[in-house]
């Protein structure tokens, strides 16, 4: 009786998930979106628990308690750690899908239809490779592992050969589902491929990689839907898959790179030595000099980069925003799509520091405003401000969309030293006549600016 309601419950859950994502499109409705998403998940879990196939709740209860106990601290991490946290949760999601696929295989083999087995191998392949790849991404983001790309000879050949072997084993399993000895080999190949896939990828490419892994985890869940003939899983999984796909395309475009280039390109060591020969001079300034320019400005655009988050300077930046806003200065923040370590990361970091979101502007929107800005203040950003991307065909970042910081009347750059950024490229912005370099730790320098400006206003 109650079982006949289950399809309706699942249908309502699927509708809730679609509504959740739709409401997430704007800040005003986003929180409602999360709540309807929670309702959808509650329906899905509740509906499943009602199913007659479930004969015992004991281990389920244990798993609920364990999962909740780990899940809550993972939700309370600081915003700077959100990329790592996301990578880790991709790993958990993918592992769940892979383990269910493994269990289903051993329960059903060898009586599995071709199509079901095809979906099952896809679920297990994507699940296990995303599991280890996400753990590797977590390690790199947490800086347990070196963030520089690690390359060796014939790396791509080896990786592709391994993937080929895994796919071959999968095809074999589809043809002969009874070959139970092959299944662990297949799973092992997927696990190893996940590790090797991430080894050559550097820290700057993490936004793309995280998005791609997000997509894989979703597709793995969708494949599970085919195995279990469950439409709710297919819908939720493909929503996740398409979301990850869109985000990774946006990230690739923002860096002017292709998927293959991100996965097999190993960026970062190409041109490190080339620019060093030429000795050029920069204008360096103290926070007091810089404060003079800010005091005289009417329009200021702040360009925050990941360096700001590393220096934990976002709260000082908020104070600077407050001081300037109080003095009637129009302050905006220019956010490059790849600022931070995952899509949209910089927005969250600034929102956490209590900077109003209507002051945050995307690249397309803000670029036309730089020529009108009195001061562009670059804090911990580098490659995304390099004008070479527009005109220097020899530059490795040529063609990458950048923030047109160089068009502002005065450019100020807060930087620890003259070391080049992730791409290992010298930034010609620093050598312009209109550029002032303020050397030092971002937090200390911005703190100094705040003190100068606040002191000036008071006295």
């Amino acid at each position, binding site marked *: 009786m109650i079982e006949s309601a289950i399809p309706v419950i699942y249908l309502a859950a699927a509708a809730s998930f679609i509504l959740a994502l739709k409401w997430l499109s704007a800040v005003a409705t986003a929180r409602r979106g999360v709540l309807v998403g929670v309702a959808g998940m509650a329906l899905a879990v509740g509906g499943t628990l009602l199913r007659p196939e479930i004969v015992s709740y004991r281990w389920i209860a244990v798993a609920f308690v364990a999962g909740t106990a780990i899940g809550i601290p993972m939700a309370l991490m600081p915003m700077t750690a959100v990329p790592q946290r996301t990578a880790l949760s991709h790993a958990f999601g993918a592992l769940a899908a892979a383990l269910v696929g493994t269990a289903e295989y051993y329960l059903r083999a060898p009586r599995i239809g071709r199509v079901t087995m095809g979906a099952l191998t896809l679920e297990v392949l994507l699940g296990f490779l995303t599991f280890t790849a996400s753990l590797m991404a977590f390690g790199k983001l947490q800086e347990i592992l070196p963030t520089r790309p690690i390359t060796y000879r014939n790396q791509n050949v080896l990786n592709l050969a391994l993937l080929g072997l895994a796919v071959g084993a999968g095809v074999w399993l589809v043809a002969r589902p009874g070959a139970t000895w092959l299944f662990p080999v297949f799973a092992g190949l997927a696990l190893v491929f996940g590790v090797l896939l991430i080894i050559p990828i550097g820290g700057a490419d993490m936004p793309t990689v995280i998005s791609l892994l997000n997509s894989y985890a979703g597709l793995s869940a969708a494949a599970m839907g085919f195995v279990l003939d469950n439409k709710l899983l297919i819908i939720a999984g493909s929503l996740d898959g398409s979301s990850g796909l869109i985000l990774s395309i946006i990230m690739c475009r923002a860096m002017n790179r292709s998927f293959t280039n991100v996965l097999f390109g190993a960026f970062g060591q190409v041109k490190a030595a080339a620019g060093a020969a030429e000795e050029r001079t920069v204008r360096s300034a103290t926070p007091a000099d810089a404060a003079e320019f800010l005091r005289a400005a009417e329009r200021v655009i702040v360009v925050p980069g990941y360096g700001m988050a590393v220096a934990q300077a976002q709260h000082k930046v908020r104070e600077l925003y407050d001081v300037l806003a109080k003095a009637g200065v129009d302050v905006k923040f220019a956010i490059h799509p790849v600022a931070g370590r995952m*899509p949209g990361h910089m927005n969250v970091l600034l929102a956490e520091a209590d900077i109003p979101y209507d002051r945050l502007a995307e690249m397309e929107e803000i670029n036309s405003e730089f020529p009108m800005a009195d001061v562009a203040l670059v804090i911990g950003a580098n490659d995304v401000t390099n004008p070479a991307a527009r005109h220097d065909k020899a530059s490795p970042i040529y063609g990458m969309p950048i923030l047109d910081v160089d068009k502002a009347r005065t450019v100020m750059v807060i930087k620890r030293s003259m070391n080049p950024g992730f791409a290992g490229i010298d930034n010609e912005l620093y050598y312009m006549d209109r550029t002032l370099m303020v050397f030092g730790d971002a937090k200390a320098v911005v703190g100094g600016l705040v003190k100068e400006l606040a002191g000036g206003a008071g006295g």
Partner: protein
Amino acid sequence: MTPEIELSLYVFVLATFLGLEIIRRVSPLLHTPLMSLTNAISAIAVVGSLLVAGEQKSTLSTILGTIAVACSMINIVGGYLITYRMLRMFRKSGKGKP
């Protein structure tokens, strides 16, 4: 191809296109919450995990299923909670802390 598989493929293709259309409209401002929300939603794998854990057909499947339920639960609890936490931080200028 059986009718069930055919129907499933239709559902998959339509849901993917729907997903692409909806997600394209999400403001880049909210891309991080978007990813944590889709991450929580993809914990829908919990449905399969619960069945495998609760059916108790074999020791292996019960163990694997239990681990899978725990993993999914981490993402459900952690994913929704952190998304909500993040969204609470977004405020407009001129408004105080919520």
